[in-house]
């Protein structure tokens, strides 16, 4: 019986931890994620102008997302593996549906209206792509060679291009990087890595050619924020002022002046880190980064501990993608990266990306708590 949990594994843990493992949750990850959610409510209370309604809505979303995580954690990784390719194909089909019947919101086609609720297939793709790649590599000899590399690249390229077409550059980058992470963990040779990187760099001018005008504008604005003082460049300038004026200790909770009086229309969503930095200062930022680092490390540890190739690759990719999320968002808010529209994991206001992230953590927890007896 390889599908059975081994209770004695947790014998030397506290009763609470033991209970959590029985419902397939990891206590350390859960603690970190709950702490982040709490922080999210704290900052949203400030950015929303102390609106209780906003907090209640966000709390509802948090509850839904955590329920989704709990549910997913019950599924044995082997089941996920068995349906990997089906899930992947369903995701692609939904993406195509968006392309043809999707609703256009803010100039981009991302939503599929299912009547009772609106659904963003690109969110699902964020999970199904690494699952499919991990499944593919685990079915073939490791490390992958050129042939496996090409087929897997195709599996990543299809959803990435479809999403970049919507156009949603931020999500496309996250999906590509989640795929690339699986490649890397699968032990792809450095030679392949270096040669494909150089090909990608050579392709950049071609990519530029196919970009939408507004995407080009964003890149140009990033290179020279002053060029668009009415638009995106203004966000960056303003967010820098907010962060910089926060200083070492910050202005204190609810005391941010810049973020409140100013000009960040997305201060509750993509630019929430600017408010955090203004109110809690460098120390606060370091603590937040440390918290993110701890969660990432715990997730990577789960990957190391995983028992089969599929789980290991998937766990590795999910952990790394989580960190990429954090890096891309904060990098964008502090002016290191272009504004691509990625929320700050678990802190930004909004439900869709939180559910996806926590489903990812649900998978990680499932991998960690569904251990089987193996001959040593």
């Amino acid at each position, binding site marked *: 019986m390889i599908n059975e949990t081994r209770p004695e594994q947790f014998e030397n843990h506290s009763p609470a931890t033991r209970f959590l493992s029985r419902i397939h949750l990891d206590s350390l990850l859960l603690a970190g994620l709950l702490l982040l959610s709490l922080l999210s409510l704290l900052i949203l209370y400030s950015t929303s102008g102390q609106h209780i309604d906003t907090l209640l809505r966000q709390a509802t979303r948090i509850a839904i997302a955590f329920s989704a995580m709990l549910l997913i954690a019950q599924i044995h990784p082997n089941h996920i593996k068995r349906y990997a390719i089906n899930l992947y194909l369903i995701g692609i089909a939904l993406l195509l549906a968006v392309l043809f019947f999707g609703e256009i919101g803010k100039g981009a086609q991302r939503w599929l209206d299912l009547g009772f609720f609106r659904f963003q297939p690109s969110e699902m793709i964020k999970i199904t792509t690494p699952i499919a790649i991990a499944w593919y590599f685990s079915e073939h000899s490791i*490390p992958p060679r050129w042939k496996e590399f090409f087929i897997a690249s195709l599996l990543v390229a299809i959803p990435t291009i479809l999403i970049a077409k919507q156009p949603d550059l931020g999500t496309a980058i996250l999906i590509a990087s989640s795929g690339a992470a699986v490649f890397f963990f699968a032990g792809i040779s450095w030679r392949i890595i270096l040669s494909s990187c150089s090909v990608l760099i050579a392709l950049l001018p071609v990519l530029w050619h196919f970009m939408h005008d507004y995407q080009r504008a964003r890149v140009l604005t990033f290179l020279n924020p002053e060029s668009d*003082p009415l638009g995106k460049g203004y966000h960056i300038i303003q967010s820098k002022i907010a962060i*910089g004026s926060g200083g070492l200790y910050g202005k204190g909770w609810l005391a941010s002046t810049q973020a409140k009086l100013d000009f960040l229309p997305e201060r509750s969503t993509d630019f929430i880190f600017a408010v955090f*930095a203004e109110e809690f200062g460098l120390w606060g930022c370091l603590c937040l*980064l440390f918290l993110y*680092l701890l969660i990432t490390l715990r997730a*990577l540890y789960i990957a190391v501990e995983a028992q089969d190739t599929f789980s290991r690759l998937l766990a590795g990719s999910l952990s790394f993608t989580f960190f990429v999320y954090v890096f891309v968002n904060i990098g964008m808010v*502090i002016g290191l990266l272009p504004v691509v529209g990625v929320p700050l994991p678990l802190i930004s206001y909004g439900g869709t990306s939180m559910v996806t992230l926590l489903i990812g953590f649900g998978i990680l927890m499932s991998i960690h708590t569904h251990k089987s007896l193996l001959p040593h």
Partner: protein
Amino acid sequence: MPQHFALQNIYSENRLFLSRIVVIFSLILLLLTALIVRLVYLQISGHEYYSTQANNNRIKVSTLPPTRGIIYDRYGKILAENIPAYSLELTPELTPDIDETLTRLKRLLNLTEERVNQFKQQLPRHRSFDSIPLLMKMDDATVARFAVMQHEYPGVDIHARLIRHYPYGKIGAHLVGYVGRINEKELKALSETDYKGTHTLGKTGIEKTYESELHGSPGHAEIETNAQLRPIKTLKSEPPTAGKDLQLSVDIELQRIASHAFKNHSGAVVAIEIATGDILTMLSYPGFDPNPFSSGISTTAYNALQHSDQKPLFDRALRGQYPPGSTLKPFIGLAGLQFGLTQINTTLFCPGYYQLPNVSHRYRDWKTWGHGLVTLNDAIVQSCDVYFYDLARTLGIDRIHQFLGQFGFGQKTGIDLIGEKSGTLPSRAWKRQHKKLPWYPGETLITGIGQGFMQTTPLQLAVATATLANQGILVKPHLLKQDTPFNNNSTNPKTDLNPTYIRDIINSMINVVHTPKGTAYKLSKNIAFKIAGKTGTAQVFTVKQKEKYDAKKLTSKLLDHALFIAFAPAKSPKIAVAVIVENGGHGGTTAAPIAKKIITAYLNKNAAL
């Protein structure tokens, strides 16, 4: 596979994976360090600089919206301008409780529920320091009532804004169009930067067609403010570029004359200057007052317009499609001459009906007892249907279709106005495609008198008339007055129409107005020049062939449309006119006088110049 080999494999795989985890971990630390270095740079080294910017001075970028271009008529009369009006505006970030403020304002100023809801919908698309109009146009009493209580409404102010005004009101409503509040759907298609600070855009007519020219582009000012957001000084400003002023080819005085000429009936008039293609008049009657639209029309007022029996919002001149009726006869006659099937003096006996060989069905003439022996000239002058039944039969639908096409029937004229309809010029192919049926011979006959499937817009009819007057060279109508005079001969291909035949047809059209037997003879009184014209009566309903006897009865119930086409002076034509009076009965009685008024006014004015 031997087990030790498999274990070996697992072992090396584990080692590889671990080494990769180490690399990723280092990468994560590296990226994290980059974030921290940047944060230290911003929050420690840059702290003083950014604090100064944040605490003492704030730089606010405000948009300076452009002034919309003014629309003039051909003589420089203003058709659309911007006038200052007091608007009531609310700035979200300065208003402590928006919902509560709105509730109180609603009570104070008797705002409608709908207005308040519209405003709430607009809120999310504005930045919190934007001043958003709640009322676009306040009358003096409202201004006074609010001014007294203003201290109780922080964040709510009275502003002077420019709003669009149409001095001629309903006379130019369809043509000039109107501006209205930008709706959600339009917003998605608009450039965010260009329309920042602008709350309205062209919805119909010239205002819509030339939106990009009229709009201009906004400027912006960087304003330094103190912590209370009071402006201290303007640091940098780039003035807005005003929209382009447009001069139309339309003469608003002619338009007014046309409008006053209509009484109880609905209808449309289009007048074209033949040499240039300038549209002189393009009127759809009844009109509507476009001014409430620019200050935010209420749903009640809009619904009243929308559901009125007379359909005032419908642009009949551009979009109304009517059977041309007998006004098509000069063109069919010309086709007969051109194809050598008849001469201007060829006679035919009209007994009051026409029959196809071996078919018992009788196609009736409007004159039940018949016109007797008629020539083509007589047939045009008296509008004999039988002559044209016969001519249409010998021409056949294919030749009719091909010939009428060169006068612009069945195709959009390409006028610079959005929403034009193309009418219908039927053919075998058209019927197969749209009705899934073959072409029947009887349909050729009724096409010959401008009934059946044939449909034209008033604009098309005017263009066809102008083209006939222009020796068959297609006239391209346009509303924008062009700087370079438009030259028909160089820009348009010559036609192979025989000038003699055109002269014959024009002579017959002169006879319609200037000989006692002509259907528009009443027009010839008291005029100093000659008019070439043709009357028409168009059936409103497609009457089944067997019910054709009821046509008279329908006319008496005033259900037919009256039409008249004309150009003048007949020998050297300058202006071409098409008039349609809905349910106006006979063309010579109701439609022709309207055309005469316009032609007379135009010729008098241009003789004086």
